[in-house]
């Protein structure tokens, strides 16, 4: 396809709580991706960094930070922030440069060093910032929003605490041998169901942790990939859509949904529109998907994504899970990497890490967690303040 770009190389720094500077994780991931691509740093013509907002100024200008750490070569840079969707934004910027013919090969890097515990808003007294106000006036942490979605599934579709626990168990079975995962542990049902209730109905082991980690991609034009005689996996679609007004689902960090009293809601809701835009670019549909990496910020949220990316109709996600369809070996495995359940979230690296996993899967290099015969995968993710993120990767 004319709009494809090649994934020449992928690399990650393992997720964890390493207590080091985020730049180290980004550089390690970048060097791994360059090695995997078989090119030198000096061959890179463009650097796209995904920003972190919790690591001072170097985090706000991540593209330049990583380029300087690798050694400034004069290559142009861009730095993107889209909350949890920052990685997809960086991928999209690099892809656009390549497709516009402005460069042949680009490096995409995201890395984070995350604080322990609840994410809190950035400091100061800022009563005009909804992200500050939601903590101040409601105490609405991120798990509060996850809890609302989880309880809604229970009330509307009959999801159970056991379903949520089983998502966690599935992902821990998928990911416990993943060398880049933080939690290399096979959790038991008892451990999950006996872990502390954080935001009813979600327990500690159903909510993703915050992690350190880094991920990187070397992207190139299809011509460049052919000249490097690499039969590369390719990116066929990148979605960075925003919601369409009025968005009728309560979203982080908002106090309320948009009102649909005057303007009718769009036919396709925001979350459903995210992967759809990537499918359309790639000329495929959900029926073509062999595997998916979705954002399991909570175990319950993974079930929402089954529906949002079109693997089933609304209300059918629990059946998909119970039937084993989304387990490796099933019809369409979801989060073969282990997902956020095994990684925890390293915000700007996560959407890039999803693409690393799909690349290994489509190359047949995923080892014990290999999805047999995978030809096409999709990622899905969402960043607060209206950032969609979805990438279609194909062989």
């Amino acid at each position, binding site marked *: 396809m004319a709009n494809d770009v090649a994934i020449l190389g992928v690399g990650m720094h393992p997720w964890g709580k390493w207590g080091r500077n985020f730049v180290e994780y980004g550089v390690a991931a970048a060097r791994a991706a360059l090695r995997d691509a078989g090119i030198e740093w000096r061959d890179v013509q463009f650097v796209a960094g995904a920003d972190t907002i919790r690591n001072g100024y170097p985090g706000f200008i991540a593209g330049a930070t990583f380029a300087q750490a690798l050694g400034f070569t004069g290559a142009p840079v861009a730095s993107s922030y889209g909350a949890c969707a920052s990685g997809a934004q960086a991928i999209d910027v690099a892809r656009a440069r390549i497709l516009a013919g402005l460069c042949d090969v680009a490096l995409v890097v995201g890395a984070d060093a995350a604080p322990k515990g609840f994410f809190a808003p950035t400091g100061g007294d800022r009563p005009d910032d909804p992200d500050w106000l939601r903590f101040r006036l409601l105490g609405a942490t991120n798990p509060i929003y996850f*809890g609302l979605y989880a309880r809604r599934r229970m009330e509307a579709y009959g999801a159970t605490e056991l379903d949520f626990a089983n998502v966690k168990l599935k992902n821990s079975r998928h990911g416990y041998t993943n060398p880049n995962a933080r939690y290399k542990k096979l959790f038991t049902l008892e451990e999950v169901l006996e872990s502390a209730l954080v935001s009813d109905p979600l327990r500690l082991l159903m909510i993703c942790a915050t992690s350190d980690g880094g991920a990187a991609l070397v992207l190139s034009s299809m011509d460049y990939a052919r000249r490097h005689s690499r039969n590369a996996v390719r990116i066929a679609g990148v979605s960075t859509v925003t919601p369409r*007004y009025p968005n009728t689902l309560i979203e982080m960090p908002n106090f309320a949904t948009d009102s649909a009293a005057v*303007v009718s809601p769009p036919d396709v809701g925001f979350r459903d529109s995210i992967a759809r835009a990537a499918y359309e670019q790639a000329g495929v549909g959900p029926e073509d998907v062999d595997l998916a990496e979705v954002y399991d910020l909570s175990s319950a949220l993974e079930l929402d994504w089954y529906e949002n990316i079109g693997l089933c109709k609304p209300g059918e996600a629990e059946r998909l899970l119970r039937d084993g369809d989304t387990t490796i070996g099933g019809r369409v495995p979801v989060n073969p990497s282990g997902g956020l359940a095994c990684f925890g979230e390293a915000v700007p690296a996560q959407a890039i890490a999803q693409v690393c996993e799909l690349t290994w899967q489509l190359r047949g290099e995923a080892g014990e967690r290999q999805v047999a015969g995978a030809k096409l995968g999709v990622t899905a993710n969402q960043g607060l303040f209206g950032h969609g993120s979805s990438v279609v990767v194909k062989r």
Partner: protein
Amino acid sequence: MAQAAQKTRVPAIEGWFRMDAAAPCLIGSRCLSCGSLFFPKEAAFCRNPDCSGSEFEPVELSRRGKLWSFTDNRYPPPAPYVAPDPFEPYAIAAVELAAERMVVLGQVVRGVGTERLRAGMEMELVLDTLYSDDAHEYVIWKWKPVAA
């Protein structure tokens, strides 16, 4: 002998709700060009993509709605939330206002835990204390089941 001074009740945020304990309500805004409603209120620009309105009037939102979903905080949220010590868990509700076709979050009144909540329940807006200091009691809106 010094007498304990009566604390002054002040809104935890100015202009978001009517400080009337008997009939409180949230205050949003309506775009004078297209009629779209917003909460929290917009004052400078209309978020309807087909409207460039810049003038708004205040609008009082419905005081009752149906519970869309709910959850709770079992652990103290981080600052800037002012959490009492010892911390007391509390529920948070998302309530759908029929006329406004809008879902609005709010804490649930003290003493009503998630075990007493069900989607579809009728909920009513009330005023309650968010936190206090030596001189002030900071007031916020909360949701309360009508049947409670």
